[in-house]
């Protein structure tokens, strides 16, 4: 080290580079900083996920639009011709909720098994492990955007105007969806390392969860009166997806009380008649809650990941 090397240029000096610390239990803020510094990896993983799904298909992203468009078309046919439930433009109502639900369900279903599936990687390369779960959420977000585009095209094609003012709340609602989904995805992916059939259990639970969320039925129309009579409304809204779904429906479907298309003069209460301020308030509150849940999930993940190597 005293003599100058004969070949090659000298590598940069590291005197001023910051120190990274590997320790038994990094603090939550260190974890979050590390996570943020690796966002490029997250993006890379999201794209590789999508590529694998559409590998060798030149139509790629086009397929991913075609499939929701097709689903939408089928629903349109079914609900306006065969199963007329009297709700006008029911397909828009259905699809605005489904867009949200699909993002949630896809994320959780793929993320739960991801750490076990990628054990080879987890055992060999160092990176924040929760990025794997977050990359599944990221891929689901991409499909969510694609479906949203399909929905918007559809809404425009039907000449149906969204609730412009409520559109402002949509980003807040989406962020709540993102943080809540990420939180659950991280925790489930870690638990599944210890309890391998969590994955199957989750699939079943999600089915049940779907019916507890007003996607294919109208909360106002079917269960709201029963719940409020018993003071159970709050319980129903403990499901964070509910408010998000209702907000999306309010934005795209718009109508709160609509005229039935089958029974003349009958009115249907389809969405809560809350004011803009009420919607904003509730969504801001939910956003704050989901951010806290995200932080808690990150901390839980940190606890659980310490022992991955003994389980994988």
């Amino acid at each position, binding site marked *: *080290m005293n003599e100058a090397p004969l070949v090659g240029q000298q590598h940069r000096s590291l005197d001023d580079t910051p120190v*990274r*610390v*590997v320790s038994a239990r990094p603090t939550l803020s260190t974890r979050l900083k590390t996570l943020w510094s690796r966002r490029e990896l997250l993006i890379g993983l999201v794209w590789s996920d999508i590529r694998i799904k559409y590998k060798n298909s030149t139509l790629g992203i086009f397929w991913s639009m075609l499939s929701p468009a097709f689903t939408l078309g089928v629903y349109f046919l079914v609900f306006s011709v065969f199963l007329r439930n009297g709700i006008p433009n029911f397909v828009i109502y259905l699809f605005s909720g489904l867009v949200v639900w699909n993002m949630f369900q896809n994320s959780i279903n793929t993320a739960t098994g991801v750490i076990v599936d990628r054990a*080879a990687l987890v055992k060999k*390369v160092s990176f924040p492990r929760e990025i794997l779960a977050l990359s599944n959420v990221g891929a689901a977000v991409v499909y969510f955007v694609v479906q949203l585009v399909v929905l918007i095209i559809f809404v425009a094609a039907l000449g149906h105007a969204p609730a412009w003012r409520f559109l402002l709340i949509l980003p807040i609602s989406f962020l709540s969806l993102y943080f809540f989904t990420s939180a659950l995805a991280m925790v489930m992916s870690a638990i599944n390392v210890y309890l391998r059939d969590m994955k199957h259990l989750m699939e079943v639970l999600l089915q049940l969860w779907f019916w507890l969320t007003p996607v294919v039925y109208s909360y106002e129309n079917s269960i709201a009166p029963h719940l409020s009579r018993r003071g159970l409304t709050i319980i129903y809204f403990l499901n964070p997806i509910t408010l998000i779904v209702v907000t999306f429906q309010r934005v795209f479907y718009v109508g709160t009380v609509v005229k039935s298309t089958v029974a003349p003069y009958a009115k249907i209460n389809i969405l809560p008649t809350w004011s803009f301020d009420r919607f904003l308030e509730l969504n801001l509150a939910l956003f704050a809650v989901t951010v806290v849940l995200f932080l808690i999930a990150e901390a839980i993940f940190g606890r659980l990941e310490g022992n991955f190597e003994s389980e994988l």
Partner: protein
Amino acid sequence: MVAVIDVQDISKSFKIHHERNQSLKERLLHPRTGSTEVFHALNNISFTVGQGETVGIVGHNGSGKSTLLKCICGVLKPTSGEIRLRGSLAALLELGAGFQTELSGRDNVYLYGAMLGFSKNMVDAIFDEVVDFSEIEQFIDTQVKFYSSGMYVRLAFAVAVNVDPDILVVDEVLAVGDERFQAKCVDRIQRFREEGRTILFVTHNADQVRALCDRAVVLESGDMIADGATQDSLRIFREHLMQDAVAHDSAQLLGTITIDSVTTPEGSFDIKSGSGLHLDAAVTSQTAYSGSFVIELFTRGGLLVSRSDAQGSPVNLLPGRNVIGIDLAQVPLLDGIYDLNVGVLDHHANTVIAWSEKAASIQVTYDGREGGIVELGASIRQQ
């Protein structure tokens, strides 16, 4: 000199579960079945590596070398203690890199680069060099699942050494791939050294440590038993081997048996592939001793070709000079130089009593068409 890797009092223990089922049902029904044992793989290890140093980590299998490297890279979390690192780090831990097999080599290069913490622009800049180094141009757009393990390791190594890391960590990967690629890797590690980068290097091959490292750390059952100049550490490592032998066999055998030379009747170690070889080992013993005789054959790259104790048949050493004949019925090796290690083992405790590393180098010439290290005599015909 600034400390680039500062390992402070690292311990790592693993929980080992006996007969435990990872299903929810099993855990709910029988929460107490199976026992959990804590295994201490590393105990209070501390050392620092300064910028520009090349440090080797040696130790027996299971002594905790890989565990230590994994803690340093952050793949494992230490149970206690702290590691402080400066600069970017690229690691090659055992075989491969955990590539995404469904993706092409190209996509994996970018993804692996990102895993190591290098940006897309940085990988763009070195992409051609990576492909060049790995020698898999034709297959770079093929899915990695169709790669041979050699191609896989070459690509992983090419990324790790080309991303311009400040610290390179290598764990026994040089045992894979063909000899020429190994030589290329050793060259690249040499160049890294000359450029003043920091390298941490694990291998079971004492010669590689001797050739590449300024310093060596010796691990023994999770404890650090030496940290010093390569020669000193390797000597302590060997002495430890000997002490083990003494500890197991109450007789003071240490230094009582020496392997003086290994020769052939013809005086030459050049043979043709497939032919046999007779070797004579001259062994001096101070006492009568019955043990087993072991031979090991390594490629120059440090890959173990064969280890044999001739079915454990004992050799009876008499006081004074003994000649032990070793007959290799046939050597089905391909072109190359193979190093021979010989030793005397206590056949009850399986500990080393005398050892001669690189006692001879056998040069094999082969003029057939097979490639690799061993001739399988394959014939291929349509059924």
